[in-house]
């Protein structure tokens, strides 16, 4: 890192950083009290610059209200996540805004990381992330690993991305479970790359109310049998 991140708060608040720097800064500022405060102040100032209000066309109001009526809101706080047969209470994430930013970053970063090789799954991942109803959720868990799930009901796909994930023995596999009122439905089985990163796509099995990740025997299980390592925290 050659650029001093502390000096980027103003350019960040004006959206004047390029994608890489924005990602670096977003990874930095939630943990930096000075930058956090500066960003808030600069954003207030930037918002003041918006002095050309323009009434949008009247029909837009109806479209927006129709769209939000079928758009699920993110949860403000970590709900209790139940996965049968085991139950585990997931601690709330302290700084959700940062967590979502980090999740987005993680995904953008992992895509950027792979753009050079442009494997088909990355194109699919980009397509998924470009859908208008994309929902990105960071999952909470112990340890250093960062895991996020992104899904789109419109495209019927779900992506799981992660970094820093522990390697597994050859006969074990990570399983992503979609949670809804009916319980847990198996979604994607995956193993991290040698560097601990994950980029996997799969079908969205329904309308999720949450997600959980367990370790299962290779080939997967019809229902979760392992401990919940990561789960929806928000």
């Amino acid at each position, binding site marked *: 890192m050659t650029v001093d991140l502390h000096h980027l708060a103003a350019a960040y608040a004006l959206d004047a950083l390029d994608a890489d720097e924005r990602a670096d800064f977003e990874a930095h500022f939630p943990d930096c009290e000075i930058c956090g405060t500066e960003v808030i102040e600069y954003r207030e100032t930037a918002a003041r610059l918006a002095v050309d*209000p323009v*009434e949008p066309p009247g029909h837009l109001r109806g479209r927006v*209200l129709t769209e939000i009526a079928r*758009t699920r809101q993110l949860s403000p706080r970590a709900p209790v996540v139940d996965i049968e047969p085991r139950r585990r209470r997931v601690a709330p994430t302290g700084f959700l805004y940062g967590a979502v930013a980090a999740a987005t970053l993680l995904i953008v970063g992992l895509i950027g990381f792979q753009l050079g090789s442009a494997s088909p799954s990355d194109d699919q991942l980009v397509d998924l992330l470009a859908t*208008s109803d994309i*929902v990105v959720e960071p999952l909470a868990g112990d340890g250093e690993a960062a895991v996020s799930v992104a899904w789109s009901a419109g495209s019927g796909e779900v992506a799981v991305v992660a970094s820093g994930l522990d390697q597994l023995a050859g006969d074990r596999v990570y399983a992503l479970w979609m949670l809804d009122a009916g319980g847990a439905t198996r979604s994607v089985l995956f193993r991290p790359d040698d560097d601990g990163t994950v980029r996997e796509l799969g079908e969205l099995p329904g309308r999720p109310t949450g997600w959980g990740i367990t370790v299962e025997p290779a080939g997967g299980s019809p229902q979760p049998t392992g401990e919940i390592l990561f789960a929806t925290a928000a």
Partner: protein
Amino acid sequence: MSGVSSVRPISASRRRRREQRDRVADAAAPLGPTAEVDTLMLAAGRGDEAAFAGLYDQLAPLVHGIVLRAVRDPARSEEVTQEVFVEVWRLAPRYEAGRGSVRSWVATIAHRRAVDRVRSEQSARDRDQRETDRRDLTAPPPDEAVENDLDRQRVRRALGSLTELQRQAVELAYYGGHAYREVAVLLDVAEGTVKTRIRDGLIRLRDELGEGP
């Protein structure tokens, strides 16, 4: 949708907005008392669609103005404005009053969404367009109807108090939606200089404009 009774009917908030507009002398708060926007945001964060409609009525001109200025194309701007409000709805439960005003929170989402749209399209577009964008910026802003808006005059004055380079850098970045590296090319100065000027310019603006509406 339940919870409708917790907010005032939309027609009432519309009426209020009109009344607020009439109070041009009180233009320091052109979007109305922040308390009301805060209340609406709080209710919208609990899934109250009627409250969100009220929020839309209050903030749609702000959002659309930001988007239109960066995106320019009316049809695309409509799309982006819609995306912004759907995003505001989705994120509403996570709005934290301690992390900035509703207005700046929504403006931030709008600006970023607009800028990202411009950049993704720009990369696939003739670069000559940038020169046009730049020329447009030096022209007086459109919409003379709100020329007497006091807040707008204050912002103009504040921008006028910057050095030429600071003002150009801030305007190209915020209004033009350019990354600072592009600003450096457009102004033909070093990238580091642009970064510093943006920072100094924004600090100056912050001090000139105070806490804001």
